[in-house]
């Protein structure tokens, strides 16, 4: 069936222009167009589909087929505002229709109650701007269930005693367990911990037009060639197009949101594929460009009324960046796991989600999972124990022996918000379109590093209980590379200490909404996409209600 897809003129004032088509943008496009609104989605990357998703590691990791390209969009990095930032690749995100959800690992746990109320519970944390959310887990719960059923999440309800309450079971059973998962589950139980089947946004059963996971093994970093990964591309974008009211416009690089004399957003200015400037008119603008590009766009859109950046009267646009702490302990076992087969993660545990700061000496919490997310080249370049030969017959022997016998315990953890940690505009470096490049400033809160090392110690206990032949990790280091892009336009009730309200509406501009990782007030314990998508479903309901009440105009 060929859909009759709408093509809007840039001079048509559509109801919504949505900037970004990833985890949040896809869902907002689908929900708003399903509610009768006319929607244009501007996506900076190309519109690829399943046939384009190959297993070529060079295309993925060296040519950035699916991700932001350092030549087009270079960036700089520094640790503190006192340093001069240097050009250094510091972040990766999906740059295509579907965004980062196309290539993510697909870990899909919900945030727990504590993530929304931690500040109130433990009090102020020195050196952190930790705050409570203006909404609670209970507010978001129906939307978590909605995500699971709408996009397809595999899992086992009530299998973890630490899980927050849920109104519905998962729509489909967990994916088949991997050898890494069995090793993890048996060892964790020996220690009295509570492993459970990892909730994954990957289909264990087929859905219309989508295959169940075939366990091809090229998962993290790759697009799914059979539509089993529940990306926005495979789910919400297709549904949005089916409404006949949503146009997905790829290769559209937005660099400015314009306001009229009344301070109302009039649409988005972007470069099309030919680098010609276009202006899409819209009654309201929804920015879902991710936790780096959303604040950058607001800062690029500075004007007379907002000289420090659009919707930035708080001065917090781009601030309070959180990346999630954590890292990997890797191990080798006697017998082949063949963990290269299948998706990445089959077992996880949340026993350490909520730790007592008095007992452990730091704030935060985390999770452990069992995984193997390396592909042949990434394994050969980075998967052997430290000190291993790097070439020659002994290197080759080690590759041949270890590839099938290696697993990783991934330690997921909190990042405490720190105001200086941020994305803003580099004063010197420009992107390929001549606009200021992203500058990242980041220095982990000391508690985040303590937490990571604490979790590595738990992972090593687990690996000892499992009988690993060899295990290794590196001491936690200050992070200089961002994958999770969180907190940079945080939600709150007070316009002085937050950028958006509980409707995702900016405090400063009535018809400008932000929804993506930037909205998060806390970082959870890793794995933010599920929460970003639940927020997107909720935001769509709020925005719909505002629009229907006529509250977006004027």
């Amino acid at each position, binding site marked *: 069936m060929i859909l009759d897809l709408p093509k809007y003129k840039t001079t048509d004032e559509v109801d919504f222009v949505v900037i970004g088509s990833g985890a949040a943008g896809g869902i907002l496009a689908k929900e708003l167009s399903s509610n009768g609104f006319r929607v244009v989605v501007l996506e900076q990357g190309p519109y690829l589909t399943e046939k384009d998703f*190959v*297993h*070529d*590691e*060079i295309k993925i*990791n*060296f040519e950035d087929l699916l991700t932001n390209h350092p030549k087009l969009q270079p960036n700089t990095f520094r640790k503190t505002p006192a340093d001069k930032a240097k050009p250094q*690749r510091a972040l990766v995100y999906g740059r295509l229709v579907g965004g980062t959800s196309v290539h993510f690992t697909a870990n899909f746990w919900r945030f727990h109650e504590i993530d929304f109320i931690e500040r109130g519970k433990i009090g102020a944390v020195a050196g952190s701007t930790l705050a409570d959310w203006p909404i609670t887990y209970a507010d978001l719960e129906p939307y978590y269930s909605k995500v699971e059923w709408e996009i397809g999440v595999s899992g*086992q309800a009530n*299998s973890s*005693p630490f899980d927050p309450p849920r109104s519905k079971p998962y729509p489909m059973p*967990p994916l088949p*367990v991997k*050898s890494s998962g*069995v*090793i993890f589950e048996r060892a964790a*139980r020996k220690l*009295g911990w509570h*492993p*459970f*089947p990892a909730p994954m946004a990957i289909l264990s059963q087929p859905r219309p037009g989508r295959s169940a996971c*075939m*366990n*091809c*093994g090229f998962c993290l970093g790759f697009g799914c*060639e059979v539509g089993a990964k529940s990306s926005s591309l495979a789910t919400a974008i297709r549904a949005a197009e089916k409404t006949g009211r949503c146009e997905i416009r790829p290769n559209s690089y937005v660099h400015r949101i314009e306001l009229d004399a009344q301070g109302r957003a009039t649409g988005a200015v972007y470069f099309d594929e030919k680098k010609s400037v276009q202006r899409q008119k819209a009654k309201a603008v929804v920015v879902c460009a991710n936790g780096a590009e959303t604040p950058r766009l607001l800062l690029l859109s500075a004007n007379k009324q907002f000289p420090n950046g659009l919707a930035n009267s708080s001065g917090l646009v781009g601030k309070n960046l959180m990346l999630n702490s954590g*890292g*990997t302990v890797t191990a080798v076992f006697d*017998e*082949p*796991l*063949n*963990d*290269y*087969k*299948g998706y990445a993660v089959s077992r996880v545990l949340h*026993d350490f989600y909520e*730790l*007592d700061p008095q007992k452990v000496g730091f704030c935060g919490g985390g999770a452990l999972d069992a995984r193997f997310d390396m592909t*042949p*080249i*990434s*394994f*050969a*370049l*980075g998967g052997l124990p430290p000190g291993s030969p790097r*070439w*020659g*017959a002994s*290197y*080759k*022997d080690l*590759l*041949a022996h270890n*590839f*099938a016998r290696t697993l*990783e315990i991934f330690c997921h953890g909190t990042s405490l918000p720190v105001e200086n940690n941020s994305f803003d505009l580099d004063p010197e470096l420009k992107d390929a379109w001549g606009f200021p490049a992203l500058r990242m400033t980041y220095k982990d809160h000391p508690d985040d590093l303590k937490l990571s090392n604490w979790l590595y110690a738990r992972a090593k206990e687990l690996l000892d209980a499992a009988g690993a032949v060899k295990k290794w990790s*590196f001491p936690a*280091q200050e992070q200089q*590379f961002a994958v999770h892009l969180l907190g940079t336009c945080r939600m709150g009730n007070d316009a002085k200490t937050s950028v958006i309200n509980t409707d995702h509406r900016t405090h400063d501009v009535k018809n400008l909404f932000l929804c993506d990782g930037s909205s998060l007030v806390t970082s959870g314990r890793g794995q933010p996409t599920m929460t970003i998508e639940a927020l997107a479903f909720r935001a769509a309901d709020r925005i719909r209600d505002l629009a229907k009440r006529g509250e977006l105009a004027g």
Partner: protein
Amino acid sequence: MDSPLSRRGFLTQGLTGISAAWFATHWSALLSASTHARQAAKAAMPPKFEFFTLEEAAEIDAISARIIPTTDTPGAREAGVVYFIDRALVTFSSEDQKTIREGLPALHARVRELFPAAEKFSALSAAQQDQVLRSLDEQQPPAAGRRGRRSRQSAPSFFETVRVHTVNGFLIDPESDKRGNRDGVGWKVIGRDPAHMFQPPFGYYDKDYPGWQANPAEADKTKS
């Protein structure tokens, strides 16, 4: 001491993904390739290189064959790595051209320094070649942490550049258009089944898994 990956080990283990039948058919050819490496490589050469001269190709081929040598199992040479590198240098890695073009004369200088009678790296014995490469191999610390894997080292050395390209060319998806991992030999060596579809059980530890059973009932919420 026998390497765990001796040929016999391969033939009897059957767990690494290399089928005994495949090996039985190919091992004599592979040993022969090892012995007559340059001739074998030449015989398999397509008509022309896009970046290398034939002389340069022979030198890069010889280096890659020490990085992943032909042993009881195929190495970089059987995987056609030199063709992969040649293609890489005119496509996705053109920024490495300078490193390679300037690195080869430096390599020859080092060869003459260590072995005054020799002219070419490829003319040295394997042990001599390893000696030259060890002298070029400035140990680079491994990228710290998993996320560091993606961030590239700035200006890697000639040796490191050839090493990374050799690994890439040995293990790239054989279905890609990049001329590497010919016949999937790299994946056979590391035990990576090229199929696109797998069914559980996947490995040794999940084959007797009884299915998910709830955590013990007494396991109420505990906190560390």
